[in-house]
């Protein structure tokens, strides 16, 4: 029997720090508490009592009073709060953005809407299973979760909730980069950057099986630290294609977590002994690899112009055009990263699946 939460349900809060930003996830739902405690397990969230549930929908005047206006952005604190509610029916977008909205992005059935209020920066993410409102100045996200989204817990955490969170972190100067990070045995720091299904997780794991140290398989946070680019791993489960288990016998040693579509979640950082390493951020990158699955027999590694590397990094930076002056700040950090590193494309062939050590040989050569 599903637990239900009534209006008097007790809000409980998961608190931890993500990329140096204090984060509080509050929900009366035990199921959501458990989901996010698991999703953010590497950050060791503490579960404590939260306040009684606040009204999730305020009118414009109340919200302005509660969260401040755009002009007060400089005075807001760094804290981010995420309030989640289970509902049977999602609110209408006109309730969430009463002053009007415009759609600014769409992928499949997930859409991103920007509010037209002149005083409050706010966005709404809508899908068939969940709705999230992001209030920039308040540092607050409110999420309404319907049964359809609860049926896909990994996607609810890793996409529906993560995307609004990344937008709010952007306003705090933490820019998400869709890239993996791996240290070579000699200590060279490599990024592997590319769109979904480019081979980031596969290559990261192949390198991990070859004595390299994976720090992240999918996401990093880029920020400025004392004026230089600073990278931090987004510490979460690695998402590995289930077919790899048929090709790489060494993977049998990795304890499998739940499956999500064709992917199997594994605790890659624990398996490769890099959980502690991944806790620290770092500045400086030695190499940037842009992979793509070629379907050919042999893999090919080729050096490329830094401008192409930079373009890929910018394209794999979610929300790059949003929230000026952040595009300019992010651009400056990305250009600094690219200037430090050598860039390569990898046309990943079947030989990598035959021998996971092949990629390490190619990069070390």
């Amino acid at each position, binding site marked *: 029997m599903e637990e239900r939460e009534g209006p008097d349900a007790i809000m409980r809060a998961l608190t931890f720090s993500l990329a140096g930003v204090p984060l509080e996830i509050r929900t009366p739902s035990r199921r959501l508490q458990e989901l996010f405690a698991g999703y953010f397990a590497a950050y060791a969230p503490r579960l404590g009592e939260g306040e009684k549930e606040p009204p999730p929908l305020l009118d414009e005047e109340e919200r302005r009073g509660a969260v401040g206006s755009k002009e007060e952005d400089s005075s807001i604190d760094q804290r981010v709060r995420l309030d989640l509610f289970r509902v049977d029916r999602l609110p209408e977008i006109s309730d969430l953005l009463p002053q009007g909205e415009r759609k600014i992005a769409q992928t499949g059935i997930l859409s991103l809407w920007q509010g037209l209020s002149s005083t409050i920066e706010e966005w709404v993410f809508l899908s068939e299973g969940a709705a999230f409102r992001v209030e920039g100045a308040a540092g607050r996200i409110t999420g309404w979760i319907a049964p359809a989204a609860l049926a896909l817990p990994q996607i609810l955490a890793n996409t529906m909730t993560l995307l609004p969170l990344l937008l709010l972190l952007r306003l705090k100067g933490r820019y998400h980069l869709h890239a993996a990070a791996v240290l070579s045995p000699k200590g060279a720091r490599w990024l592997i950057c590319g769109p979904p299904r480019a081979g980031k997780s596969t290559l990261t794991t192949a390198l991990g099986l070859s004595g390299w140290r994976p720090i992240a398989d999918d996401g990093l946070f880029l920020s400025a630290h004392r004026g230089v680019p600073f990278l931090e791993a987004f510490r979460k489960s690695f998402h590995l294609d289930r077919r790899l288990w048929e090709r790489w016998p060494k993977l049998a040693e990795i304890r499998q977590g739940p499956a999500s579509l064709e992917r199997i979640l594994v605790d890659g950082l624990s398996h490769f002994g890099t959980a502690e390493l991944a806790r620290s951020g770092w500045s400086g990158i030695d190499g940037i690899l842009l992979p793509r699955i070629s379907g050919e027999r042999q893999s090919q590694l080729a050096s490329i*112009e830094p401008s192409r590397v930079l373009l890929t990094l910018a*394209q794999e930076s979610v929300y790059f055009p949003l929230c000026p002056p952040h595009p300019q700040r992010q651009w400056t950090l990305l250009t600094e990263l690219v200037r430090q590193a050598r860039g390569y494309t990898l046309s990943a062939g079947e030989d990598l699946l035959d021998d996971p050590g092949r990629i390490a040989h190619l990069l070390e050569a």
Partner: protein
Amino acid sequence: MPGPYPSETRFQIKEGTSFTELVENREAVLLDLDNLHYYTLNGTAIEIWRWMRGGEAATLGQVISNLHGAFRLPEADFGRVEQEVSRFLGELEQNGLLRLSEGSRPEQGGAARGAGDRPYVPPQLKLASSLSRVTLSGSSTIATAAISSTGG
């Protein structure tokens, strides 16, 4: 395409562009911060942009003069180089990265640094891409596929 320009035509590069040399004297990128259009510049284009930004050249004539000094070009090449530079400036203007400035009296340009052993190549501006589109990258594409497949 704007141009060709008289040699005394004065130009002003656009404020609100981010110029970064990724490989010294060989490859640079320009980001127009208004529309997030992303351009690459080759070595000669880098020199010209730097001169115009630093006030070492404000007219076509000064750019040509600086190029001849920097690259030690033979006099026979003057006409061809002027055409190439005029075309390049026209591309900058067409893309909103440069505008004709008021007044026709040219100012004195500065002395350009030598280009060392680097050969002159025609200046080139390439529009690489626009970064103005909001992408929801990451696992979102997987998620939406999953939701669709479960019928919501």
